[in-house]
């Protein structure tokens, strides 16, 4: 199989349409698909419908740039750098986005159900809470497009008379999954190092999968240790080589999260004018990853470069 290798702008142009339901890979400060996100903002994608578990930096940028209409999520924050995402919070309070709250396990199970072709999935997690009692989406959008007819349903365990109540959840089948990985073979086989979060489930559930990666390596190299591989080549629609493509979030064994940049973002994100300035300085001007990395600067890049034995940057000033 030949690799559908593309540059970010072509991949976004070809595969992402306004209004699409998009699963974002990574988790808060780790392996966010940032290169693709910046490109989506440059191409002014609109009315996106995000489906995520715990999303941080990628979601912050997309919401802040006005690309997002609707989100199903479990958590919106960038860890210590923004315990609640600034742009997420502001858009929610100003009602610029529609938000439906689930839990991490629920969202993961929903991706898994989508990936496995299950009509629904049941769990005990969330019983009796407002997560199962209340809906953040307006009633009139229920059942339209990708919005599930029911957020979830509570029912008695249909199999065990002593099982009590269960939460029945709809599967997720996003239009597009965006994930950033360490290695892709030149056949398309993907390898994620460190934790996979729910990236594998998200990719398998999606109609289209766009992968950005640190390195493209020969197929016979990545197939030498197939036990380490995460996704088979034929599920991947487009591969974009993106060195430091998750920056300012981390990519295990390649680089740490960038506390300098995340602290800068923390300063610029809360206010509309300074956030616009952030986009003007860090997103709009760069149509290549090289130019973006030039702006980050070799000094900061060396600070976050991972120690090969540890996978992170030991002693990094992280306050």
């Amino acid at each position, binding site marked *: 199989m030949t690799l559908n290798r593309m540059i970010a702008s072509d991949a976004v142009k070809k595969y992402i349409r306004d209004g699409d339901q998009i699963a974002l890979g*990574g*988790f*808060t*400060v*780790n392996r966010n698909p940032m290169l693709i996100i910046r490109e989506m903002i440059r191409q002014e994608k609109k009315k996106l419908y995000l489906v995520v578990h*715990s999303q941080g930096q990628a979601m912050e940028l997309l919401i802040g740039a006005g690309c997002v209409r609707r989100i199903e*999520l*479990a*958590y*919106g*924050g960038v*860890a*210590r750098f923004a*315990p*609640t995402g600034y742009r*997420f*919070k502001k858009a*929610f*309070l100003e009602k610029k986005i529609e938000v439906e*709250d*689930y*839990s*991490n*396990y*629920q969202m*993961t*199970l929903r991706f*898994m159900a989508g990936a496995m072709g299950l009509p629904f999935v049941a769990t*005990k*997690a*969330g*019983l*009796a*809470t*407002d*997560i199962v009692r*209340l*809906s953040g989406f307006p009633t009139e959008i229920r059942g339209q497009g990708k919005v599930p007819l029911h957020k979830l349903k509570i029912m008695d365990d249909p199999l065990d008379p002593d*099982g*009590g*109540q*269960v939460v029945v959840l709809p599967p997720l089948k996003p239009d597009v999954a965006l994930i950033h990985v360490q290695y892709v073979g030149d056949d398309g086989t993907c390898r994620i190092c*460190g*934790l*996979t*979060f*729910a*990236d*594998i*489930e998200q990719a398998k559930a999606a109609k289209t999968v766009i992968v950005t990666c640190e390195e493209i390596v020969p197929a016979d190299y990545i197939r030498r240790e197939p036990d380490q591989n995460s996704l088979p080549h034929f599920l991947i629609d487009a591969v974009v080589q993106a060195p430091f493509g998750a920056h300012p979030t*981390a990519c*295990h064994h390649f680089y*740490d*999260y960038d506390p300098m940049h995340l602290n800068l973002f923390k300063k610029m994100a809360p206010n509309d004018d300074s956030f616009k300035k952030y986009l003007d300085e860090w997103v709009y001007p760069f149509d290549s990853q090289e130019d973006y990395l030039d702006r980050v600067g070799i000094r900061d890049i060396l600070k976050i470069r991972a120690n090969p034995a*540890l*996978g*992170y940057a*030991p002693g990094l000033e*992280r*306050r």
Partner: protein
Amino acid sequence: MENYTATEIMALSAGRLVHNGDILFAGTGLSMLAATVAKRIHAPEAIVFFETGGIDPSLDELPLAVADPRVMVGTSVNSGLADALSLLCHPKLRTIAFLGAAQIDCYGNLNSTLLGSYEKPRQRFPGSGGACDAASMAYGVIIFMQHQRRRFVEKLDYFTSPGWLSGGDSRSRAGFKRGGPMAVVTDLGVMKFDERTRKMYLDVYYPFTNPEKIMAETGFTLDITRAKEALPPSDTELSILRKDVDPQRLILGPVPAMIND
């Protein structure tokens, strides 16, 4: 004047609740300190894992996020959310989850989602993350809170994570197989839950405060009749916490002037 900070006695008080062999579902911040200090002092076989999928990492450096690459190193297994979160409900494990929240009620139910309502929101927090899952499925939960009247409320604005629901046996009647909050560790003391009513009561108060002050900072009626003064941190505990666990004071924060007085 005490020779320790509120953050230090909180971490140590929570650490004292950990049993050797417990499987600890940790967040970051105080829960990392509590778990690590317990492992170094009295629970060397306790295991820390993260909802992101890092199972029993070496934690040579303190992670600042559950997705920090520092939770992926020296692990027994690196996995993902589905694997890690499903460990919470494994019946043979005593899984203890550390959780924080914006609001708590007298039965240990938690809000980490919003103030106001979806229709008229006044404030937004990140949301459940894995908190609702841990509160639903873990063997037990230890909660960290800042002890303030606006956080200890009669009624939650939004009910994110299940505690003892409406008390008594309501939790098991709702369909939960096990679990429930064990303790609430605040900057003033440690609260526990009555075995029968499942209502919160004051178990211990720190030496620098008193039950009346804690009652005044609690927005519901708090039983203080069982309250005892907490043992102050020992020199060993403080030294392990400061020199071993968080030497950079990433979570402990700056050394306050009073310690040097």
